[in-house]
């Protein structure tokens, strides 16, 4: 980073959006880690009478089957973070690798990579996921995340390629080339830092996309067979008519959590943009 670490932290701390965004994300991460220890109920066990509203015994109430919602929630939260993290990371990593290479090299390399990207792009992702998921009889969160990551990168690659294309002709990139700096160093020393907030936005989209894709898979019964996730919770709630029955405590916590996490990441992104960009910073 060009900013010294202390300077970066100083400006980062001064930025309210960044503080709020990061706080919310950290809050949920902590909840996902600590939560399972706060509850004595296993997430999928039938422990109580059906559809109990929130109480001292069951903080978030129980499902229509009598499962503890809080327990499901914190375990689901963990699963959601795992999917987002692994799926988002794989998608972003592939996007960065292919986007930067195509954008900086240009010419033939770009054309070939562009073709590959377009091919992956037009293959209906969900259909592929369904086929693969159906083929695997035992499915875990990890498999799901990897599958999602492997199909989600084209959008990221395209966006990063376009940005790289416009940045590589900048005068400061030429100046670095005239200083004898190598391609890799130029990409990661000159071009990437200017896209930091952009890459983060890409990561957020990949993260959110992975979470949503996971929910969609869960909905059609192709999700993990051996655990619970926020997506699974909402879909069970929907499936068992929690909405018309007024069992709001079943679907509100997972829905709210997904919204809050993605929203907070977005606010973080805007805040980071202000921190990275010295012109915005001085206002």
């Amino acid at each position, binding site marked *: 980073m060009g900013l010294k670490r202390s300077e970066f932290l100083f400006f980062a701390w001064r930025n309210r959006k960044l503080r709020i965004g990061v706080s919310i994300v950290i809050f949920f991460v902590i909840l996902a880690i600590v939560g399972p220890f706060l509850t004595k109920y296993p997430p999928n066990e039938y422990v109580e009478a059906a559809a109990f509203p929130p109480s001292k015994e069951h903080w978030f109430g129980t499902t229509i089957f009598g499962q503890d919602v809080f327990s499901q929630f914190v375990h689901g939260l963990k699963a959601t973070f795992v999917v987002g993290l692994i799926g988002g990371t794989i998608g972003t990593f592939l996007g960065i690798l292919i986007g930067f290479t195509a954008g900086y090299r240009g010419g033939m390399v770009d054309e070939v990579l562009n073709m590959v990207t377009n091919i992956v792009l037009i293959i209906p992702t969900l259909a592929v996921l369904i086929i693969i998921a159906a083929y695997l009889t035992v499915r875990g969160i990890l498999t799901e995340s990897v599958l999602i990551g492997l199909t989600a990168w084209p959008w990221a690659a395209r966006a990063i390629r376009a940005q790289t294309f416009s940045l590589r002709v900048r005068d*400061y990139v030429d*100046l670095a080339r*005239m200083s004898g700096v190598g391609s890799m160093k130029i990409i990661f020393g000159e071009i990437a830092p200017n896209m930091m907030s952009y890459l983060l936005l890409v990561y957020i989209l990949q993260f959110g996309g992975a979470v949503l894709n996971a929910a969609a898979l869960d909905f059609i019964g192709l999700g993990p067979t051996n655990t619970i996730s926020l997506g699974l919770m909402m879909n069970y709630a929907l499936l068992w008519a929690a909405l018309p029955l007024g069992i709001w405590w079943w679907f509100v916590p997972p829905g709210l959590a997904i919204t809050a996490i993605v929203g907070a990441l977005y606010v973080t992104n805007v805040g980071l943009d202000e921190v990275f960009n010295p012109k915005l910073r001085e206002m």
Partner: protein
Amino acid sequence: MLSLERVTKIYRLGAFGLKKLVAVRDVSFEIGEREIVSLIGESGSGKSTIGKLILRLIPLTSGTIRFEGMDISAMNSRCLKDYYRKVQGVFQDPFASFNPIFKADRIFRMVHDEFYPKMGAREWSEKVEGALRAVGLNPPDVLNKFPHQLSGGQLQRFLVARALLLDIRLLVADEIISMLDASTRVDVLNLLADLRARGLSILFITHDLSLGYYISDRAIILYRGRIAEMGPTERVYNRPLHPYTEMLMESVPRLDRKWEEEIRVEREGDAAISAVAGCVYAGRCPKAMDICTQQEPELREAETGHFVACWAK
């Protein structure tokens, strides 16, 4: 020292690169030791493209550029680094030359890491301060700042100072003062002129005729990617041979003489049509003859050191 031989650059545009844009065609000239050559042209003349070709920032389509006898297109990365030790460039927009998220002096550190990795911190900072003083900057005023905290003039000096850290022989200065304010421009111009005293040659790329006159020994007039005229500055300006140069000299707003009272609107509409076979200026040229639309004139020496590409001469 530097020579260009029939240098051509064609850009391919559109889907599958079907459309061709000839940015520079068959341009040949030389820059000698301690010489300031100005490359003068209007927008679209290819002057910046030539600068970028010399700096090997874009590849040639055909022709050769030699520096001290070595073909720069054939250089491997080690040779190229050695080339950049001697040949450097400064561009038009001072703010665009700096990565906005880093402090401005990072460009010096880059030179250190790549060219002088063994030099100690103390010795290096003395060298940097020396270079900054040589371009008329006071080191404490400008070091450790972000680009947007410095003025355009300061940033341009910064870039010249960067070049001075190397064993520079040739500086390509592409419109480097056109974005500076009038009152600070001439100082940067004088700075370039003074660099010659340090043994440098300069290729001064500009659209502003008066700047070219002020600073250069020789002038090259470009028109749509071709050299129209080339020769000692005073002769090109005072006794132009090419009708295009004549038109330029008449049209440039001068401070010692008012324009002649006549409206001569350029026949721009015709310009595009004429580009096929003959002289690229034929469509606008008041002296055009039959041959001008049929065959392209070669650059010929009309008098000692004064070249022109025009059938009328």
